[in-house]
């Protein structure tokens, strides 16, 4: 009670002192603000020019469309379209299909990849593991390869007529076409998993490194098995790293482009609107910048909703725990 009252009485004092002080030393504060501004300016300038301005321009472009008359063989005029580009994009089965496709690939591939990454990270972290440095490097190596190079390599590994995998399956009496319509998504999922597991593993592994060894020691003394330590101690403690890698993976999958674009060279049945970014690029090719802008905004919103939705979900559950 006494502390509460004392706190209440002391609160106005520093505030008034500060007010008096600020009147006496405005130059000092202003100088600090100027210094901060000078340090921030390069970042802010680049941030606005390279990030905010293009986003604003994209949103602006998505609200217009090109209008032509009759045969339309002369220069078109730009007219305000409101949200009609959005309704057109969402009504387009090809674009809707591309959104569903990345959702599906994400729902299947992201958990598989992260489970794999977590498993590998735990194995690397286990005390009894041999050749840790070698394995850490070996698992990480695919990520060190440029994504396009990895995609080209895989496209040759799955190309009909060239694929050693198909040839081996044929030898075993199996008919396997890794670029048939139904196999395209698994093939792309495999390329993604191959390329990104090591990267995610490294993030989780470095989080594991920060887990104090005393906790594991104490658990061992309490009779906890290695599996139990991983499940009850380590995984809960690297939860933030798992959340982070999931959010990155959701955003990465939404922006899927390299793998399908490269795969298209050997799999002509892969449509040019296979993923949303592919579809937006296709619209640019057709000189329809407004549609491309609209599709980009929709994709950005989707990635935003999914990644922040996921964050909110785990934060709420984290608070409940």
């Amino acid at each position, binding site marked *: 009670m006494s502390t509460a009252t004392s706190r209440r009485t002391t609160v106005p004092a520093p505030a008034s002192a500060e007010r008096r002080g600020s009147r006496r030393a405005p130059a000092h504060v202003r100088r600090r603000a100027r210094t901060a501004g000078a340090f921030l300016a390069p970042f802010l300038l680049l941030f606005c*020019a390279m990030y905010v301005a293009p986003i604003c321009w994209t949103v602006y472009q998505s609200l217009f469309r*090109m209008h*032509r008359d*009759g045969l339309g*063989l*002369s220069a078109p005029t730009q007219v305000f379209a409101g949200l009609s580009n959005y309704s057109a994009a969402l009504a387009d089965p090809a674009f809707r299909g591309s959104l569903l496709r990345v959702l599906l690939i994400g729902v299947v591939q992201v958990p598989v990849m992260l489970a794999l990454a977590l498993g590998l990270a735990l194995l690397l972290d286990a005390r009894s593991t041999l050749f840790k440095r070698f394995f850490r490097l070996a698992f990480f190596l695919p990520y060190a390869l440029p994504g396009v190079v990895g995609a080209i390599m895989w496209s040759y590994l799955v190309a009909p007529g060239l694929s050693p995998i198909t040839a081996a399956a044929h030898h075993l009496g199996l008919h396997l076409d890794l670029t048939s319509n139904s196999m395209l998504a698994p093939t792309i999922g495999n390329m993604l998993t191959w390329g990104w597991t090591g990267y995610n593993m490294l993030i989780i592994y470095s989080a594991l490194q920060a887990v104090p060894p005393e906790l594991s020691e104490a658990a061992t003394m309490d009779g906890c098995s290695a599996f139990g330590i991983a499940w009850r101690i380590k995984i809960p403690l690297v939860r933030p790293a798992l959340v982070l890698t999931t959010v990155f993976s959701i955003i990465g999958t939404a922006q899927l482009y390299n793998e399908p674009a490269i795969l298209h060279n050997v*799999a*002509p049945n892969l449509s040019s609107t296979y993923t949303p970014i592919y579809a937006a690029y296709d619209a*640019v090719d057709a000189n*329809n910048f407004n549609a491309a802008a609209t599709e980009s905004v929709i994709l950005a919103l989707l990635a935003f909703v999914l990644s922040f939705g996921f964050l909110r979900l785990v934060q709420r559950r984290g608070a409940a725990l």
Partner: protein
Amino acid sequence: MKMHSGRTVAAAAALMTATALLTGCSSSGSTGSGAPASGPVKLDFWGWAPGYDQSVALWNKSHPDIQITFDKTASGSKGGYTKMLTAVQAGNAPCLAQVGYETLPSFAAAGALEDVTSDTSSAKSQFADWTWNQVTIDGKTYGAPVDTAPMALMYRKDLFAKYGISKPPATWDEYAADAAKVHAADPSVYLGDFGNDAYNYAGLAWQAGAAWFGTANQQWQVSLNSASNQKVASYWQGLLDKKLLKTDPSYDPSLYSDMASGKILSDVNAVWDAPIIASSVKGSSGQWAVAPMPVWDAANPVYGNDGGSATAVLKGCAHAKEAAEFALWMSTDADSVANLIKVTGIYPAATAALSNPALSAPDPFYGGQKIYDVFNAETAHINTSWQWGPTMTQTSTDLADGLGQAGTGGSKLPAVLGTVQTKTVAQMKQQGLTVTG
């Protein structure tokens, strides 16, 4: 005092970054604006065909007042057109560009072309009428035609003999029969390839008189799904259903690897594909030959055309007159045309150029055959009323997707044409064009 100097440095650094950014923008802007009043006029030319740079070099030698810089871009459908259209939007496009006839209406519809009718009209009579019509849209001329692309059958003479084909198929019925014969003799060998190139397929439709686009009463007519188009589609679907054709993607390494190993015996393609095959399967040099494209009706032969392009003048060109002058020169000058025939493999659009000696040179890859004789004989029988639509980029992408699907058995060609028709009409309507069909 120390703090003060630190702050000054920070402020100076920020200022320098800002000025660097600003001057970076403004300096690139100033180089884009027109050439100085004195000195030669400088023009940029974007294209991808091999040999264009050599024609440009010939021009630069003889025309010191107008200097052209040729920049090689990716081929049109592989990003070249996107680059050109984007540059026009950004206001820093080159004056000259290689644009295929099939894409010119799309460029016109995008407002990306400069009207050079008055600078070119006197040259009209030097070109085959229909090629002039390809660069003249709605009464306005946008450049000069360079070439046409009659199609033919390029085939392995030795392997045809090996599989018992005594003479190259003259009709599509014979082609189908030969395809079955070859495949029966060796299931791993195919008479031809059904690729996924939309414009190669367009050449097949063109030959059959199966128009895709037309205009009447200021309205577009789209007829991709017409009865005559369905006839062509059914023929090829029939061969695909019987698995008588290989389905390697067009111009893909796998196609040339199959040609080199004798798994694919022939290709129905345009005149400009002759040097491409020659350079892609060098090992079988001398074994190839060129025969006329198979026809639907032997009594009344009609052939197809796959390609042909123009040198177009792009919107915003400050020296459109000089640009047009170069475009006409490149297509008509004897040395330039000889170079384009030899290196690019063009079949010239200029009528006088048809007597160019380069057209009667024997080709060692094709066993010393004078291959242009075949194309010369065909040109009188090529349908010249073919018209391209204003959304060809979209249409050709959709069709290429469909051809790829048909090749892998994912869908059937007649259905593909229906889909492409629907998408094309929807796309045109969305752009505000008046469409029937």
